[in-house]
């Protein structure tokens, strides 16, 4: 009889988001391809626990997976955080190439052997993050003294500071009331976040800075992964890439549709942003975090 494996996969997204549907699709493909030998149960809305906790469970060998980002993996292998830097990746096609680059492979190997975290694939692109505010932002100076809600990771905080704003840590649930009561002046998110949380009720401008292209990494326990039969390993990785690339395309479409929705709801889109000025400002983040060398290496391999 064939050996049975079950992977429980946790992510923070709402079940109706394209990413969440993508994970269910990935699970279905894997189960079909391994004829039920490798089952994947998807837990949406972080039901299984806090992302950082799950990553620790993964490191201890639990048969659990997690959708995460480069900023968090950067806590273990510093160089990986570069993927989360301002204007690091501009298109989803470039993001799909990341997994094949020598440097990235080396860092991911270090992550697996030293820290027990296996990256299955990094082909899940959530889209470009923009600044959402109540006054138009066209150049970095326009962000001066604006308190922008930012995820609490240091790479994130440094990136937003470099672009000219005051990063303000705040839990996701506090964003809406925080904006309504002007405890913060804006947020930096992707379009679908705005419609999902109805933040357009408290925000007027979408400033298309596209300052970070958020690439998600799917991780599992290296110890567990190594125990899988080889064909299961291949199935898990290949289907991760296929499902991820399809979900990334769906995310891009969703962002477009959500942008239309927001225009109809009365949000003003600022598209004449001085991108060159923002890119120049973003340089400071790489210097501050000592990631200039890592970026140079990846760009060389990408041919950029």
């Amino acid at each position, binding site marked *: 009889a064939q050996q049975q494996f079950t992977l429980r996969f946790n992510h923070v997204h709402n079940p109706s988001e394209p990413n969440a549907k993508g994970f269910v699709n990935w699970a279905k493909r894997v189960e079909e391809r391994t004829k039920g030998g490798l089952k994947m149960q998807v837990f949406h809305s972080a039901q299984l*626990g806090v992302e950082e906790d799950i990553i620790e469970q993964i490191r201890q060998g639990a048969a659990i997976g997690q959708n995460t980002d480069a900023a968090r993996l950067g806590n273990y292998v510093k160089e990986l955080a570069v993927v989360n830097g301002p204007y690091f990746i501009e298109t989803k096609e470039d993001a799909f190439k990341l997994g094949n680059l020598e440097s990235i492979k080396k860092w991911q190997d270090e992550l697996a052997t030293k820290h027990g975290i296996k990256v299955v694939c990094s082909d899940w692109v959530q889209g470009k993050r923009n600044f959402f505010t109540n006054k138009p932002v066209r150049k970095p100076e326009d962000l001066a003294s604006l308190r922008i809600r930012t995820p609490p990771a240091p790479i994130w905080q440094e990136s937003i500071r470099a672009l000219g704003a005051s990063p303000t840590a705040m839990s996701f649930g506090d964003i*809406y*009331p925080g904006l309504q009561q002007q405890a913060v002046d804006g947020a930096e998110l992707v379009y679908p976040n705005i419609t999902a949380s109805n933040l357009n009720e408290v925000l007027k401008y979408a400033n298309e800075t596209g300052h970070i292209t958020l690439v998600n990494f799917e991780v599992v326990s290296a110890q567990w992964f190594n125990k899988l039969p080889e064909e299961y390993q291949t199935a898990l990785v290949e289907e991760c890439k296929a499902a991820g690339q399809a979900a990334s395309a769906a995310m891009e479409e969703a962002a477009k549709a959500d942008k239309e929705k927001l225009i109809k709801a009365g949000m003003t889109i600022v598209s004449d942003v001085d991108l060159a000025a923002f890119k120049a400002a973003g340089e400071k983040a790489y210097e501050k975090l000592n990631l200039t060398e890592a970026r140079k290496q990846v760009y060389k391999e990408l041919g950029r």
Partner: protein
Amino acid sequence: MTNMLIVALLFFVLMAIGMPVAFAIGIAGVVFFVQNPDLPFTIPAQVTISQTQNFALLAVPLFILAGNFMNRSGITERLLDLASVLTGRLKGGLAQVSILLSALMGGVSGSAIADAAMQSRVLGEEMTRRGMSPGFTAGVLSFGSILTPIIPPGIGMILYGTIGQVSIGRLFAAGFIPALMLGLGLSFAVWLTAKKRNYPPQRTTRPSLAEYGSAFRGGIWALLFPVFLLAGLRMGIFTPSEIGAFAVVYALFIGILVYRKMNAKGFVHALEISLGDVGAVMFLISLSAIFSYGIVFERIPEVISEGITSITDDVSLVMVLIVILVIIAGCFIDATVLIIMMTPIFLPLVRSLGGDPVHFGIVFIVAATIGNFTPPVGAAMYTVCSILKVRVGTYTRESVPLMIAIAIVSLLLIFVPKAVLFLPNLLFG
């Protein structure tokens, strides 16, 4: 599934042998991991710690602290003077005040448990001293805090709106009428009980205008407490998760500088009481995470959700079933956590059957909170009972009228969606 049945059974056995609920829930929860040796044995420790890293739960110790400081600040006496002037001739007047205070505090406190704890400290002793039975006092203080999460801003509504992609503005507007209905329902139950038991009024004569004036002047800082807290929120100084800190500082400010009643001894005493209160409540909330892990891991909510649709697809009946399940789950899980866990499971179900997400949100948040008050277990109930030293059995017996009132209003809320949706539709079209 059978694994979790064993866990649930063990939980009840441990409680039956008199084990503190916090330990019983943690120990029963660990047994799930014993049955799943593939899971790292450190997960129970990890999830217990994670509870204390949840920023929303920080409001619990902050409001406990604020309550104990208020108690020593002189606010209580003045509030009670005012209460006695206003409701002294009503039977069970102070109980009515507690419900009114819940409504006032509801606008600033996010957590029903914290609210119940604070009111037990502020009003509990006084209520029993004035002749109300301890069991009924505990019931009123505990059930009254049901108003807390549905009067904006409530952390529960913010979480539900964020997770379920529902307009938070609409949810906020939707809370007012149900809060009024629940408040009136409870108030009526209190009046009826007080009448039946012939709780004596505190005074027989009508207060003079001068008495009204001095009571209001004395109590103005207490009355302004929720107003200042709301102003702190409105002016954007604090977010809903932070407002408890402002409450503590305000209580200290009033006690030390305005009423000049709090001295070093009073300050230390209030702190000492708070340590025990915080420990009792937070230890239970922390350890309950061990239990919840198994529930999620075995996908029990999903199994339940499928079970529900196999019984009926009438949206109102589905809501009734969900409410019953949520109240049962609320026995073990804090309302905040329950909302985080269950919104993504039940909201899509209700949506697919044509239910309104704002309507369901209010019904769901009320139900999630009810679980905290009802026997056999519930965090707000334990908090109030342990502070007032009342047995759960006594509490249960004496809370029956209040439970009936809440059950009737809850059913009204389910079957008359207009009551919930009238205000948001008026404000947002």
